[in-house]
């Protein structure tokens, strides 16, 4: 499908990039991206993906906009207090870019619905707020063979990685899964949440923007994928580092004695 005149103008600064260009922009317009959580990470990720013309954005969140969200969740605003985050996000996206179609999932991701929902999309961006959902998303993306760009924050630190554990590296070794970084969910309460420990608002902006950027790279094929790597941003020291993440052969998802074949262990 050819780009319209208004699309040529709207996406001119992408189209001029040789790494994206017209073909890359068309891939973006045809892409179906699922964003898990319209919170601190999902807000900037959704805004940048919408601005970039990612054609269909699925948004899954069962929460409502509260006043304490607005210090960082920049897709929402004061006029949308108490509105469903899915609806609030959809309104902001519609104002930003009418090219983008949104699909709202005002529910929690569960072992029952995860595979069905994730399978409807080309790529998943996880910005949820708890480890249980992170494991569910990661396992479901492996089973559905969908790339996962996973971002997470603590009060002053962000982590970002892209997972394609159903693919192999040049040496024939499967790529790592989220479980190769976090082997098992930390005990509930052992790692403070944003609610209990706080989070610097602009940090979620940095990490959600990086997440959108990696999604755009996966869709367009620009540059080098973040698979097999973990990016860590220390906001207080202003330090970024990218380290290698290899498959742990003992992990139960795609390890040598893998035991996970469905999502029943999440039920």
């Amino acid at each position, binding site marked *: 499908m050819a780009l319209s005149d208004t699309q040529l103008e709207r996406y001119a600064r992408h189209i001029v990039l040789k790494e994206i260009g017209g073909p890359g922009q068309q891939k973006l317009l045809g892409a179906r991206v699922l964003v898990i*959580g319209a*919170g*601190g*990470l*999902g807000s900037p990720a959704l805004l940048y993906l919408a601005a970039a013309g990612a054609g269909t954005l699925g948004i899954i969140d069962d929460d409502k906009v509260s006043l304490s969200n607005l210090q960082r969740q920049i897709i929402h605003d004061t006029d949308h207090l108490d509105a469903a985050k899915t609806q609030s996000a959809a309104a902001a996206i519609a104002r930003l870019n009418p090219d983008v179609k949104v699909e709202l999932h005002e529910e929690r991701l569960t072992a029952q619905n995860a595979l069905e929902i994730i399978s409807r999309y080309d790529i998943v961006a*996880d*910005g*949820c*707020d*708890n*480890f249980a959902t*992170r494991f569910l998303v990661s396992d479901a993306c492996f089973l559905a063979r969908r790339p996962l760009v996973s*971002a*997470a*924050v*603590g009060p002053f*630190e*962000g*982590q970002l990685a892209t997972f394609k554990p159903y693919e192999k590296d040049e040496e024939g070794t499967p790529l790592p899964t989220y479980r*190769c*970084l*976090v*082997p*098992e969910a*930390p*005990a509930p309460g*052992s*790692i403070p*949440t*944003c609610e209990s420990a706080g*989070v610097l608002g602009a940090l*979620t902006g940095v990490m959600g923007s990086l997440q959108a950027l990696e999604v755009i790279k996966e869709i367009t094929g620009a540059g080098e994928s973040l698979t097999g790597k*973990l990016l*860590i941003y220390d906001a207080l020291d202003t330090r970024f*580092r990218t*380290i*290698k*993440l*290899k*498959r*742990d*052969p*003992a*992990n139960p998802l795609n390890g040598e004695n893998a035991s996970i074949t469905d999502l029943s262990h999440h039920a």
Partner: protein
Amino acid sequence: MQIILNGEPRDLKGALSVEGLLSQLGLEGRKVAVERNLEIVPHSAYQDVMLEEGDRIEIVHFVGGG
């Protein structure tokens, strides 16, 4: 033997595995990953991976917020 731990030199007495280091530091394996020379050490290898002179070790605390 000296390693660099979280950017600071640290002297170790005798041979020490990654698991031994975590236990010396009083850190729980469920809450952190260990980065050795810019690579995450697989959790299942903590007992087998022995620290070497000059290793650069960073403790990566898990974060799960969004």
